């Protein structure tokens, strides 16, 4: 009987504690200001972060997007008026844009694929212990540290038959009929920036994939070896499934970056010859800073943004599926 009573008391006491932490006032006499502050409290706490995000990320984005619906010419002081969807109508009939879109696919696809393949090979090589591995790992990272502008200049010179050795080597190998600059060859010009981009971007894949490789428990390889799996089987049934989420996310990131990445093309070919290396990003750059038509450039950028967002959603979903399986 006594125990039961004690229990009741204990319950009552706990309830009271609960009331107090929930923050409901015992008396209803509370001023309006008090109530407003109480409700605003969580928002006030998050305000600094929200204000930062809005001013730094959202405001410029919205401003940039608004250009797409306005007539903004840098050198025309009377421009700036609202033009509705005019830019998009022009874009719809712009052959240069479609060529740039095709070039973007080619440029991005080839660059990402080659960077990934060489990066993976490099990561697998660096995953095995050998003398001087630490030094090799540091060296592999080096191209990533070279400014892209310099990378572009460097490769442009390497492809230049007057000062660079590459055309002469290609000629000696019989791959060229004369030591010419492939950057001025409409058929092959795109390969110049792609090769430079691959050289520059391999370390990113090599390092991230190496980190993922080293996170795979060694036991699994040993268990598989005992189960009877050879090297290739171990790669396909352990290494690849473990790398899949990392591969998905790195390929996604690189695809978005590279399709937005106009530096090398601007430096090496400026989109030429005859717009053969013009990608959407460099086309935006050309429209904005050569033609100074910010409105039209923003419209193209908006379309590119929508395309990349759609693509990102796809990869994020794919990654989720892979993560759930792993």
């Amino acid at each position: 009987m006594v125990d039961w009573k004690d229990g009741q008391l204990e319950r009552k006491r706990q309830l009271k504690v609960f009331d107090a932490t929930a923050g409901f006032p015992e008396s209803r006499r509370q001023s309006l200001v008090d109530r407003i502050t109480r409700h605003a409290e969580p928002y006030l706490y998050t305000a600094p972060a929200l204000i930062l995000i809005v001013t730094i990320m959202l405001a410029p984005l919205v401003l940039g997007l608004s250009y797409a619906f306005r007539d903004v010419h840098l050198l025309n002081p009377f421009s700036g008026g609202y033009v509705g969807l005019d830019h998009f109508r022009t874009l719809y009939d712009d052959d240069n844009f479609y060529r740039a879109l095709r070039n973007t696919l080619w440029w991005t696809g080839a660059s990402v694929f080659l960077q990934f393949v060489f990066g993976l090979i490099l990561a697998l090589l660096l995953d095995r212990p050998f003398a001087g591995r630490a030094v090799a790992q540091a060296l592999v990272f080096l191209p990533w540290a070279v400014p892209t502008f310099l990378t572009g200049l460097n490769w442009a010179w390497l492809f230049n038959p007057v000062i660079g050795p590459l055309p002469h080597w290609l000629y000696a190998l019989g791959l060229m009929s004369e030591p010419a600059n492939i950057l001025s060859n409409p058929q092959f010009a795109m390969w110049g920036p792609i090769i430079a981009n691959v050289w520059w971007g391999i370390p990113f894949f090599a390092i991230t994939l190496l980190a993922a490789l080293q996170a795979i428990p060694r036991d699994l390889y040993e268990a598989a070896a005992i189960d009877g799996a050879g090297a290739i089987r171990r790669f396909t049934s352990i290494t690849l499934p473990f790398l899949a989420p990392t591969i998905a996310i790195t390929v996604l990131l690189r695809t978005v970056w590279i399709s937005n990445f106009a530096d090398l093309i601007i430096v090496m070919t400026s989109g030429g010859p005859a717009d053969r290396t013009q990608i959407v990003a460099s086309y935006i750059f050309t429209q904005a800073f050569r033609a100074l038509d910010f409105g039209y450039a923003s419209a193209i950028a908006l379309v590119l943004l929508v395309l990349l967002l759609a693509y990102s959603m796809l990869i994020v979903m794919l990654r989720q599926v892979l993560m759930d399986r792993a």
Partner: protein
Amino acid sequence: MASIDIRNVRKNFGIVSVLHGVDLSIKNGEFVVLVGPSGCGKSTLLRMIAGLEEVTEGEIRIDGKRVNERAPKDRDIAMVFQSYALYPHMNVAENMSYGLRIRKAAREKITAAVSNAARKLELQPLLARRPKALSGGQRQRVAMGRAIVRQPKAFLFDEPLSNLDARLREQMRAEIKKLHRDLGATSIYVTHDQIEAMTLADRIVAMHEGVVQQVGSPLELYDRPANLFVAGFIGSPAMNFLSARYEVSGETAGARLPDGTLIALSSAYQLEEGAAVTLGIRPEHVEMSPASEGSLRATVDLIEPTGFGIILHLGLHGLPFNVFTLDRAALTAGPTVTVAFPPQHLHLFDETGKRALESSLQKGKG
């Protein structure tokens, strides 16, 4: 099933030598436990049998055939890892059938083997789950299932129970023993837990610093430890050691403690008169008795009831000394107690730590 022969096997990692010539022959169907503290080389030896480490010197034979140069997959053995090493992206059934699928076994044969193993290990309801959706004990079972579906020549266990909590460990220990009884497969089991070694093994191989210290049945190691290391390692709480001098006087042999007490021995030993010896006695063999000849007074430092019995931590001339007793009266033991050593339970080790040999001349009787 197979016999395994290990002949003078050595292992060096660079200039560090971790196994200094191990000889061991394991009979068909035997359950052998390699036991020792961490760093004694037991896991290395197991991994060499599995083919995961190269043999620096010596020879390993499975079923009479030299396997030193064979890849793990060609040795037809199965291994259960401490971490279980389950393939996280495969479900339980796929994990268990992986080895058979690689070997391109017939589909019906795979299904039969998996469901057979699943029944033995009570895994049927879990076959479609991935390892991350399993508890530790269930993962352990899947790892065992993966080993048994292939019906290999031998099972190798590398501390398979170390990641489980105490209760589950006991349970799985019994299951492993049952499984061995049912399958009768040659098994080598590595552990640092002497209880696991005692309960599971047909034969225990006690190792220390890369050298086999003693090979024998669990009770042989318990009753007649070959040296101080085995004596101290097997048994819990651990054996007590006292330094003494060997003495023979007329018909009786004894060990003289530094304080002058003469402890009677049950037989004579092949030792010089006055040789320095170490006297060993297990805590459960010490008798608490009224003072008599050859008994010692000890101070009580600590009393640990285990429920089943009581462990008394004593101080004997300032040295720690443990007694295990079932007598609950010990719970109220005073500041000092009197202990006596039954001669038949005494172990005598010579100066080098080896078990002293009883003398063929039965000079004395304790």
